[in-house]
């Protein structure tokens, strides 16, 4: 798994690449951790366009992040899921509990109207 971070005016955009399974879920957790602190503000948007593989371990990390942000009145969204990743979200019913957008632009627009990818 690999990732890069862009700080936007009202949101943090994290681009996640590669594979997340029980072995790499810790890395994913670490990637999100520094953006979940009480001192942070704005929404967190994950660009999953280049995420190739994800198991329940990664989904759990996502849910913990969403819960943590909800406690701070912040929001988390995922965007640009590949078809197989979208299927995994649907089968595990994560499509019912997380905000999912077709594109990063739509996610940013919905969660943080003041922010644009740049």
């Amino acid at each position: 798994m690999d990732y890069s971070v862009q700080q936007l005016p009202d949101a943090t955009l994290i681009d996640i690449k590669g594979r997340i399974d029980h072995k790499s879920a810790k890395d994913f957790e670490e990637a999100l951790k520094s953006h979940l602190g009480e001192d942070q503000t704005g929404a967190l948007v994950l660009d999953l366009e280049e995420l190739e593989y994800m198991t329940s371990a990664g989904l759990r990390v996502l849910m913990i992040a969403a819960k943590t942000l909800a406690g701070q009145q912040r929001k988390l969204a995922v965007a640009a899921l590949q078809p197989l990743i979208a299927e995994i979200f649907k089968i595990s019913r994560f499509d019912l509990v997380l905000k999912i957008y077709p594109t990063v632009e739509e996610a940013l627009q919905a969660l943080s109207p003041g922010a644009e990818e740049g």
Partner: protein
Amino acid sequence: MQVRFWGTRGSIPVAAGGRAIREKIRRALVQAAGRSLETDAQIDSFIDDVLEFPVRHGYGGDTSCIQIESGKEPTLLDMGSGLRRFGQQIMGAEAAEPVRLFHIFMSHLHWDHIMGFPFFPPAYIPGNTIRIYGGHEPSVMEEAFERQQSNPCFPVYWDQLGADIEFVHLAPDRWHAINGFRVKLMVQPHHGGSYGYRFERDGKTLVYSTDAEHKQQDDSGIGPFVDFFRNADLVVFDAMYSLAEMITVKEDWGHSSNVIGAELCLLAGVKHYCMFHHEPSYDDEMLHTILQETRRYAEIVGEGKHLKITTAYDDMVIDL
């Protein structure tokens, strides 16, 4: 080794209500339209070959009870409401030499896993022995059963049972030899603790792992379960909730999900993953949908590994 499911539901027994039965009949009639169904053979073929499982059969509603049909004496896992039907069958089947000794392994002592016992006829017959094994202390096991059969919960009290009831503690993480099986227990995360079982006999392995919540999904959390499941011919697994449910509204309720079972079985090289302990609010259609979805999930995350996946139903028999 042959495994027979007498009860497969979690938490509380359920029955298909009138509305559900009407819908099954309706769907069958819609599919029957235009077909020639004049002979018994045609009708049977239509039911068995054309109608889908949720229409022609369904998954049943008794709570956890499984029989392993090998061994000198009957071997059972848990005593949910399915035990009642096993009891009826064994009483009806008794021939010149009736069964006198029963070996019953308990995952834990929650109500849905013991509620069949007051309705188990062999427990009322003097001369019978019911030997109940578990990872919990014998006094803890006995207290659970005794409470269930005491005032005001049930009219026939514990001390009125005719059979000898024995409680046997089995230490986890070591092998035991019982009724022709090699048996090992594993502690599982559940309220009050539960125990998974690995049964081996004649080169075949059954793992029974119900009522366990798999919260830690890194190597340290799943590693011991992968080892316990390793290369099993059949794993019967608590797949009660969707993953989203088990880590949101039903977190700490003590149960797992269909997708975690699939992942553990894939990692452990299991041949056959059987989903068990079904959520009582799920109807037959929902359970059927979950089965198709779980197979697809295993296809995606398994990346070429083969895993047979089924959903347990009452009266299902699996030959290993």
